[in-house]
């Protein structure tokens, strides 16, 4: 059975580089998508993504497993995104997602409909207020509970739950629309 995240991070704190590599490979894709969906460009996302991990590395000696490692990781990511949004005036972001829209079927009409549906969904995701989009991504991508979202974002559970539900309602409307 694989070691839990917290144990791996403690091992890395104590000098085990292999533990970090295992930890990194577990979380790299989800964290990357979380950042990518929250910023304007892929280049910016890569820069922020790298910076998040650098901060994890630098903070390893202060790490104590008071919460889930995932919550701790995404708390760091949250702060990075907040700084990024603040510098850019919380403007809405667009994603270069055209290459990420898969073809649903060989039928051109079906493909077009699928693209339209995904485009609509992506636009709805982009149009969410940053705090709602972040709550959705923390829940959907990172797998955080409402309580953990509240902890990571420095808010309370009521606010986190509210943001998540508003986000879901808007995205649901985009799916059904």
């Amino acid at each position: 059975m694989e070691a839990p995240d917290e144990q791996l991070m403690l091992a890395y704190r104590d000098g085990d580089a292999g533990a970090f590599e295992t930890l990194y490979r577990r979380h790299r894709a989800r964290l990357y998508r979380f950042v990518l969906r929250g910023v304007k460009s892929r280049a910016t996302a890569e820069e922020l993504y790298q910076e998040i991990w650098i901060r994890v590395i630098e903070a390893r000696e202060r790490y104590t497993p008071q919460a889930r490692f995932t919550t701790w990781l995404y708390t760091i990511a949250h702060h990075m995104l907040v700084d990024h949004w603040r510098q850019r005036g919380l403007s809405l972001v667009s994603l270069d997602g055209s290459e990420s829209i898969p073809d649903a079927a060989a039928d051109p009409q079906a493909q077009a409909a699928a693209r339209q549906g995904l485009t609509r969904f992506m636009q709805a995701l982009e149009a969410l207020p940053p705090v709602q989009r972040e709550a959705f991504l923390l829940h959907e991508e990172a797998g955080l509970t409402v309580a953990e979202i509240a902890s990571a974002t420095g808010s309370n559970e009521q606010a986190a739950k509210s943001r998540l539900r508003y986000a879901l309602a808007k995205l649901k409307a985009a799916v059904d629309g």
Partner: protein
Amino acid sequence: MADEDRDPTVSQRYRELGREEPPPELDAAILAASRRAAEVHPAPLVAPTGRRRWYFPVAAAAIIVLAAAVTFHMDRQQPEPDMPVAAAPAPESAKTPVIKPSAVERKAPRAEAPKRERRTDDARKPAAYSFAPEPPAQTAEAQRAAAAPATQGAASAPAARSEVHAARLMAQAESPERTLERIAELRRQGRHEEADQALKEFRKRYPDYKIPEAMLQKVEKK
């Protein structure tokens, strides 16, 4: 996770957006940085004893001396305006976290460094981010000298750079709470750019520190 917080159709549509992953070169850079950091002997979990006990007080004293020397040099360059003396910081409370020296150092600011190359220096080099186990008490003169540049007005370019450097050195010897108070003071004075920069550096130094709501209202730009 409660079911009411998840909608299967939304989740499905979200997954259809794509399963992007970081590029391999980004993975390599991050893993290389992690290995370099792990190669440096990690700080002990308990306070050092014996031969290594002298590291931390010497490092703290060096920071204070350097900060005082820089600010003294600035004072000699230009007349010191009639500014109020900064209040002595409160005695460090038991809540002050024990901070271990960091072995991972960055190069120059990101814009000047290769995009994905992060370098760490070994522990032999006096770390700019070194901390004492407990932040040392500063003499009143050192406090005044260190605080004065932060309250001076526009200066020449070299003096301005020294001011920023001295402020950073002072910040590095502060507790998180004291740092936040300083940022709040900057914000109250309308010095938003400095406050933004200080807050950004605070986030870097304490990425998982949860700022109390009351303090957050004071340090964040409205």
